[in-house]
């Protein structure tokens, strides 16, 4: 079970800035461990964000994204009290979904 994300969503006018911090190893699959064996790739491949259940962002990520990635985006028309959901799926099929309320 993956660790939770930290999601902050702040409304200013008709725009809401969403900042997401995800806890993930994001192993690129190129590194070798102390024994000389390749550390298997393990990274987030799909990211989706929803506003009150309606998809507003989908992204395809690769191994070049950093460990514990930070994602920031702006949602138009989201108001205080709305729900922003973010979910990711990694190349092992593991998923995590978290939700935050716009403030």
């Amino acid at each position: 079970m993956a660790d939770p994300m930290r999601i902050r969503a702040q409304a200013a006018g008709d725009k809401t800035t969403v900042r997401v911090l995800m806890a993930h190893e994001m192993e690129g699959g190129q590194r070798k461990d102390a024994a000389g064996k390749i550390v298997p790739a393990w990274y987030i491949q799909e990211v989706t964000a929803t506003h009150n259940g309606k998809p507003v962002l989908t992204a395809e990520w690769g191994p070049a994204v950093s460990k514990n990635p930070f994602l920031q985006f702006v949602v138009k028309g989201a108001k205080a009290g709305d729900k922003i959901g973010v979910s990711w799926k990694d190349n092992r099929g593991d998923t995590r979904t978290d939700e935050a309320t716009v403030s």
Partner: protein
Amino acid sequence: MRMTKPLVVAALLFPVGGGAWAQKNAAVQSIEEYRAMLQDGNPADLFEAKGEGLWTQKRGPKNASLEKCDLGKGPGVYKGVFVELPKYFADTGRVQDLESRLLTCMETLQGLDAAAIAKTPFGRGEQNNMTALATWIAAESKGMKFNLPQSHAQEKVFYQVGKRLFFQRGGPHDFSCASCHGEDDKRIRLQDLPNLTKNPGDGVGFAAWPAYRVSNGQMWGMQQRLNDCYRQQRFPYPGFGSDATIALGVYLGVNSQGSASAAPAIKR
């Protein structure tokens, strides 16, 4: 002829000196911009959240939480304790820093094996939990000013021991902490080194750790910071929660008196 020589020297010196100064300023400024960009998404938040969960989670052979842990302000108090550590604890009869005190609580309250945890390398097993707990407790004192007690005789002894250790040269490079941290405006590559023999100011040095290191994606507590300083000096591993590292903590912490804590910070 005699009159012109000093003039030529002066003309040569000034542009060179000025150029180096401007260059360094630009480098420092761009690093600060980079840090400001990172500040918004400090992954230390993730460790904070984990530490907060661990505090109340029942764990160990005694199946107990850490909620009765006394970090210096009474059992269960975690706000504001970080800026008053290391300090003397009467129950253990030792001066302890945050991490060694947490270790005491993990042993006495939860029944975990403190010696085994102290021997675990950083970033593995229980040491990960230790770092997360230290990160969260430090974060609960963010912005508060350091005010380490120096009333107990042991605390005064630890300050003096820490000071001696700070200046003690040794190892294959004949290094001391003061070799790098004893003067203003020193750096390793592009990292500015604070002068730790005096108060380095708000959020610098002792007031910045635990910190998340972007370059290796690791969260480091003060124990790991000091351990790595000793590794860089080619000293042997000082031991987790050893009196030597705590004495250095007392020296650095007392020197930082009145400075605000920025921990958990974010580093390159």
